[in-house]
Structure formats: structure tokens, C-alpha cells
């Protein structure tokens, strides 16, 4: 079984580029160039240098002793929370800004939900001196004020998405419309492993640094490259794609994908796409998505803004369909509890997205000698208000 994208842009039956003709020249330009550009020694040199000196990579692979003791298994945390700007998102924005420069683009657009990808995009635009426009749902702007302020300090223009439900899905629509209106000078930095081909593959490749490092770091710690499990939370699926990438074809490594169940899978307030979703088309790709019987895209819900997306990237739809990955779903309450637990046991306050991945230890039993690597995709600073309100801190 092949779990990577094929030459037509599909993962099994998922993926492709279901885009209006207006976007075709942009997406086609990217498709024809992305692998070539990424293979250029000069590109790789600049990318690696920035990841090291600016982002602070490699991010540590940390054996969480007290957490391991509690769950009677060996848990390693991949510390993407220690990256500059506080999450894995910057791996992708560094890669894409270098791509945009090589394609001669002078104007950058992005969508954001919680604001993490918006901040990561505004950051690299400041670094490269490029104009930056971030679309953000009007509702998210109100509930993520600190990240809006960060983007503004970094010189970005934040434009409220006023259409539809005024959250991430609509911000993505607005960014796509902007790209239709500005087909020549603009590059769209998508923030997850979603969108029309080649985006899911390109974003995955930029994030694959995560599993590349896990391999040699685990070798140093344990004398072996492959853990028994790799675990990551899935919104659109970029941190997960990066965490799995170099293990996809290692049969001994089991893959666990953690979705947000929100108030519960059957509550009507959920983002557990693998269970509630059906094959369809969202933002230019064929994948699993939450929709009505009539094919209208529905609004997901999760306490974590980063997991609050009605689809999953096409690679994950394929991993789900083929059974390569085990999909689990975690409720708001379970995630919040695990976030607090990690803070108390290890002195690490995780992003609520990452807390979802940590919450599986209460639901699934691992063997004592299993090695489980959890991607800690981000830190909890951005979520302090949510933690405060939830725990009445």
C-alpha cells in the first residue's frame, strides 16, 4: 500500500484539485514547481538554516518520566511547543515563504482559526519583508484577541471573514476568493495539510522534519529509530502528517490520529470527522468532511479552535479508510483534564489541541515496554483564557 500522494495528486481515492478554473493557473504553477524548488540545494540550505537559527530546531524529544509512570508505558513528547511562535505551524510557513519568494510572489495571504497559523505567517512575512494579509472569522477575531494583536504588531493586515459562520472554514473561503482576485502576485500559504493538490503534499513535506528528527533522536535515546506508536491530534492534519511521514511505510509503527469529539460524538457539537464525516469536497480536495445529506458543509465544534475544522486532510482520509491509522476521538472535558495533568506532572502547559493527543492514555492501554511518541504540537499560552475559564483558575 502506498500512503504518499500519487502523480495525479491523490491518496487512494482522496485528494485531487477540485478548484474553479480561476484558480487553475496559480495551483498549476505551484504543482509544476514545488518539488523542483524544494530539491534545490540553495532552497534546502536556506530552509534548514532558518529552522535551526530562527525556529530553534531540532525540537527536543523528551522522555516524560512522571507521565510514563502514571500510565505505565514509555511516553516521549516531541516538543514542537518550543518552536518560535509556539507551535509546529512555523515549519510550514518558513517553507512556503521561501517557495513564494522563488516563485516571484510579493503578496502573501493566509487563513487562520485560532490565530496560530496567522501569527506564524505574519512572522515569516516580517522576516522576509513581504506584504501579509490574514483572513480570520469575525467570531474568532473576538475570541482570540491576543493573536490578532500579535499579527498586527508583526505588520499583517487582519481582515474579518463576515460570510457564513464567520469561523475558520469561512476564513479559508475568503482567502481562496482573494487568490482568485489576485492571481498574479499573490501566494496563498495554507495552514494545514488540506486544500487542492499540491498543498497537502507540500505542507506534509515541510512538516516532515518532525518525524525525521524523531527517528534520529529516538535512536540516541533508545538505540532504535522506530517507536511502537506515533500519536498526534488532527485538525486539518499538518502536525499529524509531519509526525507520521517517515513512519508511514514502517509497518511496526502504529499510527494513532486523535480528533476532537467536542461535547461528544453524538452531541451535535463535535469535530470528529472520521466518524461524522462522509466523502465529499471541501476547499478544493476530495476527503472526509462533515456535511448534511444534501452536501452542505456543516459547522464543527471543539473547545480547541485549531481542531474546529469540518474536514481532514486527504492523506488522513486515506489512512482512515485503509485502516493504517487508528482514529480516536477525545471530548473537551477529557482534553482539558489531560492539559492540566501534563502541566502538573511535567511542568509543560500544552495547547488544547495537543491536550487531545495526550488524553488517549486514559482511553487506551499500552504495554509497559511500548514506546509511544506523542507530538506536542503547541504550547498553551494562547489558551490560558480558556483554561482559566474552564478550571476557574
Amino acid at each position: 500500500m502506498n500512503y504518499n500522494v500519487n502523480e495525479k495528486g491523490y491518496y487512494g481515492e482522496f485528494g485531487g484539485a477540485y478548484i474553479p478554473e480561476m484558480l487553475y493557473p496559480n495551483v498549476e504553477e505551484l504543482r509544476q514547481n514545488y518539488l523542483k524548488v524544494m530539491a534545490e540545494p540553495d532552497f534546502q540550505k536556506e530552509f534548514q538554516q532558518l529552522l535551526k537559527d530562527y525556529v530553534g530546531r531540532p525540537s527536543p524529544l523528551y522522555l516524560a518520566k512522571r507521565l510514563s509512570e502514571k500510565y505505565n508505558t514509555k511516553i516521549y513528547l516531541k516538543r514542537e511547543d518550543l518552536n518560535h511562535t509556539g507551535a509546529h505551524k512555523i515549519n510550514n510557513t518558513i517553507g512556503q515563504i521561501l517557495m513564494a519568494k522563488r516563485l516571484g510572489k510579493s503578496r502573501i495571504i493566509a487563513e487562520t482559526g485560532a490565530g496560530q497559523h496567522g501569527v506564524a505567517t505574519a512572522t515569516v512575512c516580517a522576516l522576509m519583508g513581504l506584504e501579509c494579509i490574514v483572513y480570520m472569522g469575525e467570531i474568532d477575531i473576538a475570541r482570540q484577541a491576543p493573536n490578532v494583536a500579535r499579527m498586527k504588531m508583526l505588520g499583517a493586515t487582519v481582515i474579518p471573514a463576515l460570510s457564513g459562520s464567520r469561523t475558520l472554514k469561512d476564513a479559508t473561503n475568503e482567502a481562496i476568493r482573494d487568490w482568485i482576485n489576485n492571481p498574479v502576485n499573490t501566494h496563498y500559504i495554507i495552514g494545514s495539510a488540506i486544500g487542492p493538490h499540491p498543498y497537502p503534499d507540500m505542507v506534509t513535506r515541510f512538516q516532515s522534519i518532525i518525524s525525521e528528527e524523531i527517528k534520529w533522536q529516538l535512536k540516541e535515546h533508545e538505540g532504535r529509530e522506530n517507536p511502537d506508536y506515533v500519536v498526534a491530534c488532527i485538525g486539518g492534519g499538518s502536525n499529524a502528517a509531519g509526525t507520521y511521514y517517515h513512519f508511514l511505510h514502517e509497518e511496526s509503527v502504529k499510527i494513532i490520529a486523535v480528533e476532537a469529539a467536542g461535547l461528544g460524538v453524538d452531541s451535535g457539537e463535535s469535530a470528529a470527522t472520521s466518524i461524522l464525516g462522509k466523502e465529499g469536497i471541501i476547499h478544493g480536495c476530495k476527503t472526509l468532511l462533515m456535511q448534511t445529506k444534501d452536501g452542505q458543509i456543516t459547522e464543527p465544534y471543539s473547545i480547541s479552535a485549531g481542531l474546529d475544522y469540518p474536514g481532514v486532510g486527504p492523506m488522513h482520509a486515506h489512512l482512515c479508510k485503509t485502516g493504517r491509522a487508528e482514529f480516536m476521538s477525545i471530548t473537551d472535558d477529557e482534553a482539558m483534564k489531560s492539559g492540566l495533568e501534563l502541566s502538573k506532572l511535567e511542568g509543560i502547559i500544552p495547547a488544547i489541541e495537543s491536550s487531545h493527543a495526550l488524553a488517549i492514555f486514559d482511553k487506551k492501554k499500552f504495554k509497559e515496554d511500548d514506546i509511544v511518541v506523542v507530538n506536542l504540537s503547541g504550547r498553551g499560552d494562547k489558551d490560558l483564557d480558556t483554561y482559566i475559564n474552564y478550571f476557574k483558575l
Partner: protein
Amino acid sequence: MNRINQKLEKSKRLLSIYFTAGYPNLNDTVTIIQNLEKSGVDMIEIGLPFSDPLADGPTIQASSTKALQNGMTSEVLFGQLKNIRESVQIPLIIMGYFNPILQFGVEEFCKKCSEIGIDGLIIPDLPVDVYNDQYRATFQKYGLINVFLITPQTSDERIRFIDSISNGFIYMVSSASVTGSQSGFGEEQTNYFQRIEKMNLDNPQIIGFGISDNTSFTQATEYAKGAIIGSAFIKHLTSFGINSVDKFVSNILKA
């Protein structure tokens, strides 16, 4: 022969009007179609509303949202159009995004269209190659014409390919924009119109996006077989209601 082809053969300065089915009220669909035909419109695009219309500007977004709130679905639309051919003769095209059609079942959707007397489909986010590889035979089986878009950025080579797999007309998007963004045409557009005109394509072209009044309609039909108006008509419906359709149309067509 498909009604679209007949119409294209016979007419010049063809006017096609787009509206969103289920807007302003759920059951206005048939009345709007009948009023448009009576007012002298040559062809109608019935918009099947979608929650996430990527290629549309604020006007069509808002009409789509309202139509969905009103309860419009593919099923409801087919129900409303069941007897449409008893009262309406002009070509009817359904324009909608791909996901609702995919969920309905592409073959089932085409079958329904053909039973009712729909003549063609415009599906902006169904890629040309996917249509060609997977759905072309189905469309042909049910006698449906699929209409593709081209834009000022589309290469000549790709236009030739699209022309080769089209069997009705080519939808020429007037500028790099979503629907309803601008009005009137500058030099850039007329250069593009002339470039396409000179290509001598097999399929006639109809220009859409950015046409809102008699001036832009006249300009567009100097270079192409016809023109499509969407957002401006929906704005008119919003302001003046479904019984003033003829006023809008006569303003566009005035000599």
C-alpha cells in the same frame, strides 16, 4: 438537438440570467423562471445554492445562505421544476458546486435533470480532467451539455483543450475575480475578448462576471455570442421583488 445548441444557432446578443434557487423565498423559483422567459431572456442559469461558494462574491453568497435557510436542497429544486417544461421553452441550465451533486449521485442528478428537461450544467469546481475521465459519458448519456469556464489567465493551449471537449458554449469569465466584483470593462478586458475572438473556437462564447447593465451587456456582446448577468439581477430581486423582473430585463436589452 439540445435547446442550448438551437438557441446558440439562432440568436445574437443572447442574454442569460443567473439567479439562486430558493431566493428570496423558497417557492419563487418557478415564477422567476416564467417571468424571465416572458421578459425576453434567452437562457436561464438556475443556481443550486451551496454553503461554501468559493467563486462567488458577497451578493451570491448572501442569496445562497438565505436560500439554504429557506430550505432549498437538490431534492426540493427538482420537485419545484418537475413540470417546468409545460410552461417554459428556453434553455435551462443548473449551476452549482460539485459537492451537493456528488452527494446526490452524479448519475442520479443527471438523470433527474434530463427527466425534467434541464439542458446543461455549470459546475465551477468540477475540474476539466475529472469530468473528462469520469463523468463525460454520463453527461452524454443524459443529453446534458457541460459548460466550462475560461479566464484571462487561461493559456491558449488549455482553451483549445476545453473547446475540444465542450459541446455547447464556453463561459468566458471577464476578469480575474469572483462574481459581482466589478462593473464595466477596461482595456485589459477588451484585449482578452479580442484574443479569444481571434482564436476562432468551435464553441461560441458567452461572457459572464462583471456585467450589470445595458452598457456592459452591449460591450460584451460585441465580442461574444452573449452575456450572463447574475449578481446585478439578484440585487434587483432583493430591492424590487420577483414581479419586477421585466423591468430589469428591458433595461438591459434596450436598444
